[in-house]
């Protein structure tokens, strides 16, 4: 009996193919998703991983067997699939494992309107349905099998994305994009075809799920090195680093220096508050303090949210926020069905560069006010013991438990939270200066590692 617990995670399904995730399991998941989603149609797409087509085929057969129709979108980035889910108003499944090594694949599931499905709102149910399908105890559907159709939404998606930049106000920027052999290689050129005033160079643009150049995880500084060098060598105005399924993007300024997710969030917030004054903007609690400061200065309403896309989207829906940003490079847009999109973030940044006529190295200055530690992970035997010890050591400071423990020490702050997949404690810290930041990190790590 295949082990579904091993592959059904907090936010998606992921595993090594075929040991953990094979065609039979994919078929059962297709049956399960059709039963859970409860609609007439499901859209399916996949990224460039070699195992994609076979898994999609099996999943599709599972869906069709339940009398549910399938719209197969073929090769797509995750944001293209979310767009389809919103535009066509259908539940959808994206076969991707983002930046995980080549032997992995996985599925991101959403209901119509790109409403994400995590372990607390559907993945558990889907697991149960899938188990029954694997056991052969799934009830036989009463109607006829579903109909399969193929659709290519790339052009429509490109037009949708380009709608986020003011085309009357463009300047001839020179842009280099590192798509890391991921899906960006397909979608980035398609978008920029509509913006001929921009010069675009693509690095590692061949779709290759073996990631022959570097891992498709731009959050790691090592993976931005090639891009940073190229930006400087080629005299580009901006560099863009996309991850494997192209839903995240990291920016590099014309001096070859990367921008953190917090700085990008602050920049995007600025752009949205200029367009829609007084709007609500969400930021995850790991973001720099500069983010809520910038939002307030620009007259917006900033709301601090738990990490993770399901919380961001939920709070976006509840508050009517126009934009939400995470330090990890996920940027969500109300006008994109609240789904995240690296491309739409790109459009917004380029729009700001065009509107102001200023280089990115200058635009970032007022947004970078503090020194951040970056995320430091430590293997810890008893995570809650460590968190409680820190809470008590720093009990004289204001604290909250929105996500792990956050302590506000005035001129500096820190957050510790558990990883939901490994026995790791994640530390994020920010202080007024680099030295203070480093000192406090040492201070905290000595406590963390002593327990």
């Amino acid at each position, binding site marked *: 009996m295949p082990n579904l617990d091993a592959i059904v995670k907090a936010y998606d399904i992921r595993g090594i193919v075929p040991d953990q995730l094979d065609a039979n399991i994919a078929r059962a998941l297709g049956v399960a998703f059709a039963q859970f989603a*409860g609609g007439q149609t499901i859209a399916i797409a996949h990224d460039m991983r070699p195992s994609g087509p076979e898994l999609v085929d099996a999943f599709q057969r599972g869906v069709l067997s339940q*009398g549910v129709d399938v719209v197969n979108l073929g090769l797509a980035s995750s944001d293209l699939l979310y767009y389809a889910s919103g535009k066509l108003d259908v539940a959808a499944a994206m076969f991707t494992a983002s930046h995980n090594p080549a032997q992995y694949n996985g599925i991101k599931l959403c*209901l119509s309107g790109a409403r994400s499905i995590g372990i607390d709102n559907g993945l558990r*149910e889907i697991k*149960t349905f899938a188990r029954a399908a694997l056991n052969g105890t799934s009830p036989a559907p009463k109607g006829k099998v579903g109909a399969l159709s193929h659709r290519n939404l790339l052009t429509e998606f490109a037009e949708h994305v380009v709608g986020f930049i003011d085309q009357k106000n463009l300047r001839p920027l020179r842009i280099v994009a590192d798509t890391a052999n991921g899906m960006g290689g397909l979608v980035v050129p398609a978008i920029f075809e509509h913006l001929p005033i921009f010069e675009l160079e693509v690095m590692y643009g061949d779709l290759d799920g073996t990631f022959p150049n570097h891992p498709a995880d731009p959050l790691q500084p090592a993976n931005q090195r090639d891009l940073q060098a190229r930006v400087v060598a080629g005299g580009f105005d901006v560099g863009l680093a996309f991850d494997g399924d192209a839903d995240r993007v990291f920016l590099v300024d014309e001096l070859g220096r990367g921008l953190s997710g917090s700085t990008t969030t602050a920049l995007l917030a600025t752009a949205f508050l200029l367009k829609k004054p007084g709007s609500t903007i969400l930021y995850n609690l790991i973001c720099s303090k500069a983010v809520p400061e910038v939002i307030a200065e620009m007259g917006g309403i900033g709301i601090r949210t738990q990490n993770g896309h399901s919380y961001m989207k939920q709070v976006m829906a509840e508050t009517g926020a126009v934009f939400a940003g995470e330090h990890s490079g996920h940027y969500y847009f109300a006008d994109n069905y609240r789904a995240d999109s690296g491309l739409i973030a790109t459009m917004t940044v380029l729009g700001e560069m065009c509107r102001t006529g200023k280089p990115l190295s200058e635009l970032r200055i007022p947004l970078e006010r503090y020194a951040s530690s970056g995320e430091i992970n430590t293997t810890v035997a008893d995570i809650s013991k460590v968190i409680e010890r820190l809470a008590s050591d720093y009990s004289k400071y204001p604290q909250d438990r929105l996500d792990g423990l956050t302590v506000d020490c005035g001129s500096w702050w820190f957050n510790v939270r558990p990883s939901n997949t490994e026995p790791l404690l994640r530390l994020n810290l920010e202080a007024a200066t680099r030295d203070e930041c480093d000192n406090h990190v040492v201070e905290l790590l000595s406590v963390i590692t002593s327990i």
Partner: protein
Amino acid sequence: MALDAQLLGILACPEDKGSLYYFPIDEFLYNPRLGRKYLIRDDIPIMLLEEALTVDDSERLRLQERITAEGILPTFR
């Protein structure tokens, strides 16, 4: 006191428009996506949002297990 088969073939959740699972003996229709029950009174399904009951996590799981164990099919397809 079962619901008419034709009616069952078209019943959808008034909120998310997706299909529901019919529990004839317990007399409700269940939406696994939202964890919501629509009661059936005197053979009439009450498809009103304000009358719907939201179930807690442990009941969600219980109902889910029952759907698969009893082989309950979703409405409309």
